[in-house]
């Protein structure tokens, strides 16, 4: 991988972030009023008591130079967000910072997301590949057809169904939160199980839906790869079926899937943070839900920034890994 390719990809990453900050800046300013005063007014009208509302308006007006001309405001905002990572103050937690509110929530979201995506990607692709593999048992096909409809149902809706089935009708898993209130914590088996059992249903809602999604597209790619000449050649050479399956068929089918992962990660992230709302899981999705309830616009903007940055970061990583996996890709 050349330095040129690397720097070009990083440039795209930076441009995406600047674009997101720009959208974040302009949408609330499309209305003619001072946005902060308008927001505080809106919150008061919703029946939320805002302590020190004058202080908030003043602090914001100063920090973002609300009285300056728009371009000056814009560059100040850009500088604040990008150089200092400063998204301003949360209105409902004033003088708490938006970034503090979000950073506290990020670990929950990221851990759930990574576990769910790894499980779904591995299981989904394996099932999809086995589905068109001649020697695989009939059962695999049945499982894939069974999972297919799940891939079209929004994660949020699946989460509601799972919550009802496995936490209320059959109380196997807890109904929400990250741990049982008053649990001792620490590293005892009981504490670990407590944390794990709280995460099972949120993870499962994303996994169930994604498995069908990956299996479906893997099935299509694998069907094409299986018709290639090099596969017949591998068979003619008398290679073991397991080796043909993994090193020849699956390996080549996986490359477009990894590209697809980069493209779909936006949908996956924004869909799965909604699941947190169902399970009261204190991640970024829950922060968003509460911020929307209290019209805490700056926190909403912060969550949007989180989504954009994490998507851009995932795509950057995918683009940097892909040339390593696929020797036919030569990036300049």
């Amino acid at each position, binding site marked *: 991988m050349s330095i040129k390719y690397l720097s070009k990809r990083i440039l795209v990453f930076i441009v*995406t972030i600047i*674009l*997101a900050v720009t*959208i*974040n800046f302009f*949408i*609330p300013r*499309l*209305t003619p009023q001072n946005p902060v005063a308008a927001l505080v007014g809106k919150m008061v009208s919703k029946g939320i008591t805002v302590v020190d509302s004058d202080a908030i308006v003043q602090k914001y007006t100063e920090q973002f130079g609300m009285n300056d001309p728009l371009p000056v405001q814009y560059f100040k905002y850009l500088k604040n967000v990008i150089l200092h990572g400063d998204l301003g103050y949360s209105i409902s937690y004033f003088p708490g910072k938006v970034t503090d509110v979000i950073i506290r929530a990020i670990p929950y979201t990221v851990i759930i997301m990574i576990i769910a995506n790894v499980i779904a990607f591995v299981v989904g692709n394996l099932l999809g590949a086995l*589905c*068109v593999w001649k020697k695989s048992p009939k059962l695999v096909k049945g499982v894939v057809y069974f999972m*297919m*409809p799940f*891939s*079209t*149902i*929004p994660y*949020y*809706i699946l989460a*509601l*169904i799972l*919550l*009802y089935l496995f936490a*209320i009708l059959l109380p196997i898993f807890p*109904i929400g939160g990250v741990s049982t209130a008053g649990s001792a914590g620490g590293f005892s088996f009981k504490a670990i199980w407590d944390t794990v059992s709280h995460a099972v249903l949120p993870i499962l809602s994303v996994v169930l839906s994604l498995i069908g999604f990956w299996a479906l597209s893997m*099935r*299509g790619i694998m*069907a*094409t790869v299986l018709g290639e000449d090099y596969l017949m050649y591998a068979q003619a050479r008398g290679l073991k079926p397991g080796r043909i399956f993994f090193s020849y068929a699956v390996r080549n089918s996986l490359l477009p899937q990894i590209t697809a992962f*980069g*493209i779909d990660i*936006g*949908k996956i*992230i*924004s*869909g799965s943070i*909604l699941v947190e*709302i*169902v399970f009261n899981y204190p991640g970024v999705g829950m922060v*968003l*839900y509460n911020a*929307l*309830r209290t*019209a805490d*616009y700056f926190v*909403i*903007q912060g*969550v*949007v920034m989180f*989504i*954009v940055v994490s*998507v851009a970061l995932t*795509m950057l990583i995918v683009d940097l890994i892909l040339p390593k996996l696929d020797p036919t890709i030569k990036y300049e």
Partner: protein
Amino acid sequence: MSALSQIRKINKRMPTLLPGIILLLILVIPPTLGRPFLDLELTQISSSRINIPPGAEYPLGTQSEGRDMLTILILGTGATLKIGLIAGAIGLAVGAILGMISGYFGGFIDKTISAIVDSFITIPPLAILILIAAATKTMSIEGMGIIVALTAWMQPTRIIRSQMLSMKERNYIRLAKLSDMGSIKIIFTEILPNLIPFLAAAFVNGVSTAILSSIGLEVLGLGSQQTLSLGMTIYYANYYSAMWRGIWWWWLPPVIVIVLIFIALFLISLSLDEIGNPKFNRL
């Protein structure tokens, strides 16, 4: 008789099309043809006693604001499908125009349009929708449809563009070009009729994406406040903790209808894919 055998023939080629359409019709008929028989009073707050389980008087019970669940459910299904339809139509129109221009003319125009589509596909649309929806004061079903259309035009553009690329290399198009037919006339009379199955696939795809995005916004409370759609019904059920209080008839019916809508659209798009990728027939 011939119509019946025609249907049988289509059913044999695309076995999932008919079940999908029938399922969708079952969902569409009550809110459209059945509308005159509905008592719209019952959707008002405190029009009935609250929290009544399903029974003889209220087939699906009532919820905690005193609205009749069956009426809400039927109207909500209509509202959700209307959002999908508006957004799907906008998405299809924009996608078809951009896709055809991009594929037919190629070159710089194609590169520009493709770059825009690619960047929109990667920027998570829900993020932008949340900002817009949170900044607007009131939201109607139609407004919702227009906003979520932002997420529903990229896939149609891609589908139509790639079909256009292969279509324009065919001999009859070359012949039309040689006989000095204008570009617009070629696009509309020679190419468009052949694109109909792909336009249908793109439309179904757009509707499904739009409904998905609209439900995403609605469960965050950003839906229409005037007419209850299915997503908003679930939002309020969640808001009033219907699940913990055992009022299953409030949240479960809209969940089931949403699942049925997505399955119906999935079945239809699966069969339309079959036209586009005949390779799957072997599986």
